[in-house]
């Protein structure tokens, strides 16, 4: 007979054992992992005490890799095989990236997303990112001495489109992370800043990183962080300033960088000079190009002349966001500066001038995003018992469909709060038309050619009718991660023809399977072991959540209903102790189906309470 468990006096058997959930800032230049410990978010250091992990991977002989500091140190000597600033290629084809002649890589054009040839074969930006994420996951597991993280919140630039978000999520899954949520970087920063400073009101977050720029306006009200409007440029950052400075210095030295080493040296020297000029008035750009050491003196004034057009682009985006939000500059109570590039004095001065108030620089611009992600991860893991903050984010870019003449019909407007769904009706162009090609695009321009193509699909089986008689209802849905799905249905005739598309730019399922088989990122065990582990965690999670729900709201059920739900939770828990993945999944499915009505009743109760709360306040 199994022994019965007895808990300590005064301590209920806690279904919410503290779960380790982390926030990860996957940056262009460097990445961080943070977690809430003892109620406070903090960045987790590596064994040498460093919190920043350079986002650099060097592919070595025999499938080995160097990641982070070691890889960055080898950037120049092994430029072709040492990948850096790869975030700029996430969800991008070669054509999207533009001029690649200044970069030391061998690019491969592929449909959807480019790849880079290394001595270890082709590497997609998703695989690269997964290496970084897996390294951070390992760091977190070592820190907490666990081999099972509950999950992670991963940040993306607010201005990342659907392709770039999907690619990021794919990378996290490939790295063996349970993605609790993708959140926007400026939103994460606002969360960390707002909670730390007890701020209320309208705030702007100006986030200029290595490769991306975001500007978000947020309203902070009693633990709710509501994004009012957001904008930016997913391909504008400190790297562009480095390129401009490197180009100028090379021209001044009368040199041309043709080898991978020379190109990398020129960029590394530019970055070093730029960073020195945040404090000093002059610095030296010194690089080995074409086998010769070149040196050029750079003044801060020179750097600022080179950087000004780029900073002006960020200021135009700020003005646009203020217009979108219908907000005057002086209504903004504070401007939080995020991202390493905001250390440049010119950036601080220009943004302060635009808002007519000094910007807030009392946060660490490198760490604040990861800290905010950690707070949200902790809340999603159920650790923050009461008063968990609520993030209400928006999509930064409009979503639409191609119509006749290559024009875009917008279905969901930018700055719509997510999750959001919207349906629109379309009709046929020709008599007897039985199929319709749907082309989904993202962007603000009128012409399809100027927007980003996300997916194409066909709706077939439309009954033949005269032109204009069919009613095709197309529904766009954007979930809380900012990811889109689209469905279409012909409804005039009653004949159904529906299709669901989830644009995926990252990797197909079998690609992921292959990479896992290849021993990707030192992934523990094979695919079967991994699915079993995931199913077990899910079984434990769901049975605990169900019991917690019963404890809180069991009164909504009759005794019989309650017993049925309890039995399903017990079955799931028991299946979770076993090793039969299929059985666990079946139990999970039964639990999900058997608790649907209970979930609906709880939701209803919550809404009624919210409404009642308002009436009480009115009195």
């Amino acid at each position: 007979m199994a022994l019965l468990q007895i808990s300590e006096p005064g301590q209920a058997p806690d279904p919410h054992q503290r779960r380790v959930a982390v926030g990860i800032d996957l940056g262009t230049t460097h990445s961080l992992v943070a977690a809430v410990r003892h109620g406070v978010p903090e960045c987790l250091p590596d064994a040498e005490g460093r919190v920043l992990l350079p986002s650099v991977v060097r592919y070595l002989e025999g499938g080995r890799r160097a990641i982070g500091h070691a890889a960055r140190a080898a950037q120049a000597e092994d430029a072709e095989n040492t990948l850096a600033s790869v975030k700029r290629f996430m969800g991008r084809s070669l054509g999207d990236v533009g001029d690649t002649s200044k970069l030391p890589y061998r690019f491969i054009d592929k449909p959807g997303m480019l790849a880079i040839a290394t001595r270890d074969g082709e590497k997609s930006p998703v695989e690269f990112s997964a290496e970084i994420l897996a390294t951070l996951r390992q760091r977190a597991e070592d820190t907490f001495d666990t081999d099972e993280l509950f999950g992670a919140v991963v940040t993306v630039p607010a201005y990342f489109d659907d392709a770039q978000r999907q690619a990021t999520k794919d990378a996290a899954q490939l790295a063996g992370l349970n993605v609790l949520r993708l959140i926007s970087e400026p939103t994460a920063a606002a969360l960390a800043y707002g909670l730390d400073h007890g701020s209320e009101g309208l705030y702007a977050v100006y986030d200029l990183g290595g490769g991306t720029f975001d500007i978000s306006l947020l309203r902070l009200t009693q633990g709710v962080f509501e994004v009012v409007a957001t904008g930016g440029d997913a391909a504008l950052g400190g790297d562009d300033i480095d390129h401009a400075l490197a180009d100028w210095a090379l021209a001044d030295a009368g040199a041309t960088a043709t080898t991978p080493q020379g190109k990398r040296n020129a960029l590394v020297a530019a970055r070093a000079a730029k960073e020195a000029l945040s404090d000093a008035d002059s610095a030296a750009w010194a690089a080995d190009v074409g086998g010769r050491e070149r040196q050029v003196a750079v003044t801060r004034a020179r750097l600022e002349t080179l950087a000004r057009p780029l900073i002006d682009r960020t200021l135009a985006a700020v003005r646009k966001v203020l217009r979108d939000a219908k907000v005057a500059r002086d209504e903004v109570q504070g401007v939080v500066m995020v991202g390493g590039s905001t250390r440049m004095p010119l950036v601080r001065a220009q943004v302060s001038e635009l808002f007519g108030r000094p910007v807030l620089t009392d946060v660490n611009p490198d760490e604040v995003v990861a800290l905010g992600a950690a707070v949200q991860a902790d809340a999603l893991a159920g650790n923050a018992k009461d008063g968990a903050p609520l993030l209400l984010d928006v999509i930064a870019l409009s979503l639409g469909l191609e119509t006749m003449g290559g024009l875009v019909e917008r279905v969901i407007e930018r700055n719509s709060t997510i999750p959001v769904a919207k349906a629109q009706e379309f009709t046929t162009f020709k008599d007897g038309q039985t199929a319709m090609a749907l082309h989904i695009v993202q962007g603000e321009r009128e012409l399809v050619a100027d927007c980003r193509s996300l997916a194409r699909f066909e709706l077939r089986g439309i009954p033949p009718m005269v032109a204009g008689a069919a009613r095709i209802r197309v529904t766009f849905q954007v979930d809380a991660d900012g990811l889109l799905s689209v469905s279409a249905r012909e409804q005039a005739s009653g004949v159904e023809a529906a299709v669901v598309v989830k644009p995926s730019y990252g990797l197909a399922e079998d690609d992921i399977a292959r990479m896992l088989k290849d021993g990707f990122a030192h992934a523990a065990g094979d695919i079967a072991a991994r699915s079993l582990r995931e199913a077990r965690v899910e079984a434990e999670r769901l049975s605990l959540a169900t019991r917690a729900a019963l404890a809180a709201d069991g009164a909504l059920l009759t005794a019989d209903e309650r017993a049925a739900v309890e039995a399903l939770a017990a079955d799931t828990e028991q299946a979770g102790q076993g090793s039969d993945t299929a059985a666990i999944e079946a139990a999970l499915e039964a639990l999900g189906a058997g608790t649907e009505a209970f979930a609906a009743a709880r939701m209803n109760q919550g809404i009624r309470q919210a409404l009642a709360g308002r009436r009480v306040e009115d009195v």
Partner: protein
Amino acid sequence: MQLGDDDFTLFGLPKQYAMDRGALDAQWRRLQAEVHPDRFAGEGASAQRLAMQWAVRVNEAYQRLKDPLNRAAYLCEQRGAAIDAERNTAMPTAFLMQQMQWREALDDATDLAAVEVLDEAVLRTEHTMFATLAATLDDGADMAAGAAQVRALMFVARFRQDITRRLEVLDAVR
């Protein structure tokens, strides 16, 4: 409380055009705090699906209620006066003349300042039209008149989009 309830009922607000924006915003936050998928993070796929449906519904109602024109159109339709903007395009002559003048002014405006002056003028007219609409919907009973005013305001809204687009172009080149 059901997904199919009308927007006003869902938000527990009186079914009228006049809107206490502060109460609407507070109610939206309160409802999202109950239904948002983040509140059901560990509770499995079916709870997530349900939360998603409710969060989408709450956002949809909020978007409609907070926008004066959409709220007015919704109220007309709820009271049986269809807007039917695509088929019903008849407008008073004076209003059409005004529209033409504005369009010409926008075509002639070459700098930011000129467009901003026009923007200001259109905004003032729009303001007056909304005041009339409010009186029609909340004090009168002529829903057909209300629907006609909504259609006219839709024209104005479209023109203001053109102005905004022009402002963006001029701002980007400066």
